[in-house]
């Protein structure tokens, strides 16, 4: 069985991954979904076991031998009942690549995923929030000025890198 070569990076774009000379080439465009401000309390309700699209990115690798997806989200969840109901999932062309830990109020979660030998066709990368709770849970963008929180990934965002082999 072929085991894909992986390099787990934990950096903020456009800082290169450790051990790799990276070229930051976001050849796609990031499309964020529309989110409600937390102060309005107009949350999006997500059914038990359902997935909500946070962000998507269409990307065409120029050098497909070494690509890295960096996705993150900073959201507020079921605010005054339960904060740990959602995990993020990263999909590439409808195939799951990774899942984060639970998301929590006020904290940013990220996923990084590195893979090799993607075809030089256009790929669809998606970041989704999965509701693991047994009932419906609510979610909204964490943008309230009063509450602070991390604004790097309001709602959800994805970056794309191509890397040269170390």
């Amino acid at each position, binding site marked *: 069985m072929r085991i894909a070569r992986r390099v787990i990076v934990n950096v903020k774009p456009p800082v290169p991954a450790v051990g790799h000379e990276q070229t930051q080439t976001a050849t796609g465009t990031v499309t964020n979904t529309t989110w409600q401000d937390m102060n309005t309390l107009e949350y999006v309700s*997500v059914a038990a076991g*359902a997935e909500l699209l946070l962000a998507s990115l269409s990307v065409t690798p120029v050098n497909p031998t070494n690509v890295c997806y960096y996705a993150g989200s900073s959201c507020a969840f079921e605010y*005054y009942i339960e904060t*740990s109901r959602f995990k993020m999932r990263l999909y590439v062309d*409808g195939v799951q690549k990774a899942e984060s830990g*639970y998301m929590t109020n006020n904290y940013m979660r990220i996923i990084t995923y590195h893979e090799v030998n993607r075809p030089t066709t256009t790929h669809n990368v998606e970041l989704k929030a999965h509701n693991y709770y047994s009932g419906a849970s609510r979610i909204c963008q964490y943008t309230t000025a009063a509450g602070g929180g991390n604004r790097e990934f309001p709602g959800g965002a994805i970056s794309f890198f191509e890397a040269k082999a170390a």
Partner: protein
Amino acid sequence: MIIRVPFTGEILELDEQGQPLRGSPDNPVRIVDFQDLLPSELTHFSYRVISYDVLAGEAILDVTVEPRRVPTGKLLAVEGRSDLEPIPETREETPAEFDDRKRRTEEALVDLVERRKADLVALKSRPYIAQR
């Protein structure tokens, strides 16, 4: 830790190495929700897919147990929002607490994969629900 678990969804195309290249938009290739079979305290982990074993219907995952915040039992008022109910106060997990939970989580995952595989496989039949 590395584990093998069933995956579900519809594969539309394989690459030259036999890996799923494209999944159905309506039924993506994804890992089963095995958190449903573990106590909630033992579900604070993330994973990355190393590869898919399409013939076996399993994915090989690299699982990482993550730190969590522990409720203190106190409730905190939401600053500037007297109309909201108080939220539970939490604190950082101590290293000893983390090590203990990490050990128990990994034991539970091994138990799940090795002895309760039928439960995991049963989750493959769960329908996909997407929301916008």
